[in-house]
């Protein structure tokens, strides 16, 4: 039992570190793939975490990723922090619901990618009181679908190689 707990902690620490690094690398070195659509590399870690460890751990990893990556880039509590928090919050909610519904990994990834974009746009609309920004949504929706497939495929490749610690592993 003690070994199991230690293993979970080690996994949680590693996954959190990976999510933070991927988030920083993506925002600083990779940038948008086209228009405003980003790959969402850190979403791979969120998908892997919920399948490997569970819902609670996924929330911890996502929260750590937003707070620490923004803290390390000197943007904590700035507009970009709230925008990424909005995106992560909505995608985490979608992830939890789809996990309960036992959806496939690929579909979960696509919906999370979409929810991430929608969450960010919602925060921008509220931040700037500018509903016209919502016009970017169709572009983001179209871009999020292929990005969701890419992150979902990557997460599947990872999960095929690691034995989950979670007892009630969905599909």
């Amino acid at each position, binding site marked *: 039992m003690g070994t199991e707990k230690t293993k979970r902690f080690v996994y949680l620490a590693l996954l959190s570190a990976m999510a933070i690094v991927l988030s920083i690398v993506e*925002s600083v070195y990779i940038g*948008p793939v086209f228009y405003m659509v980003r790959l969402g590399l850190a979403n791979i870690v969120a998908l892997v975490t919920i399948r490997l460890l569970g819902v609670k751990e996924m929330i911890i990893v996502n929260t750590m990723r937003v707070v620490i990556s923004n803290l390390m880039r000197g943007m904590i509590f700035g507009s970009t922090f709230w925008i990424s928090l909005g995106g992560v919050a909505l995608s985490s909610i979608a992830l939890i619901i789809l996990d309960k519904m036992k959806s*496939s990994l690929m579909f979960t990834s696509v919906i999370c990618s979409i929810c991430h974009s929608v969450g960010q746009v919602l925060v921008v609309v509220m931040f700037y009181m*500018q509903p*016209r920004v919502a016009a970017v949504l*169709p572009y983001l929706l179209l871009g999020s679908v292929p990005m969701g497939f890419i992150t979902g495929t990557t997460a599947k490749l990872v999960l095929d190689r690691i034995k989950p610690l979670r007892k009630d592993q969905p599909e």
Partner: protein
Amino acid sequence: MKKKEWILTGIIVLAALLMLAGMKYFPRKEGTNETAQPVQTEDPDHSVPMPEEKAEGEWIAVVNRAKVILYFDSAVDGEYEVEGNVGHMVIEVKDQMWHVKEVDCYDYTCQHMGWIGTESILPIICLPNDIVIIDAATASEMVTR
């Protein structure tokens, strides 16, 4: 992926395509503006007043921290420099289109947005600098005086 999930993904893509088609074929109505020389603020605590002269094209406002810091005419070619939260931004206006030529920030999304005109749906937004470049009529709704 299950069949139902494929269908749902297809519906989302279709909805996005329909929204894009709707935006392309039913563009928003152009607002009518009055007033030709760019007006820039000296006082960062207050919005610059809307120019009274009629613009040759349309008056475009540069909003920072909910204050209009510059009005420029979309039909007058030129370059304008404004200060944002992180650093300076250079806006170039040419052939009734404008874009961010230079910007001091870590993101450059506003620069990547390219040339924007009065027909464009999206305004130019620089989040790190808290700058929005938008038509004057809409700007007046989002600023505090």
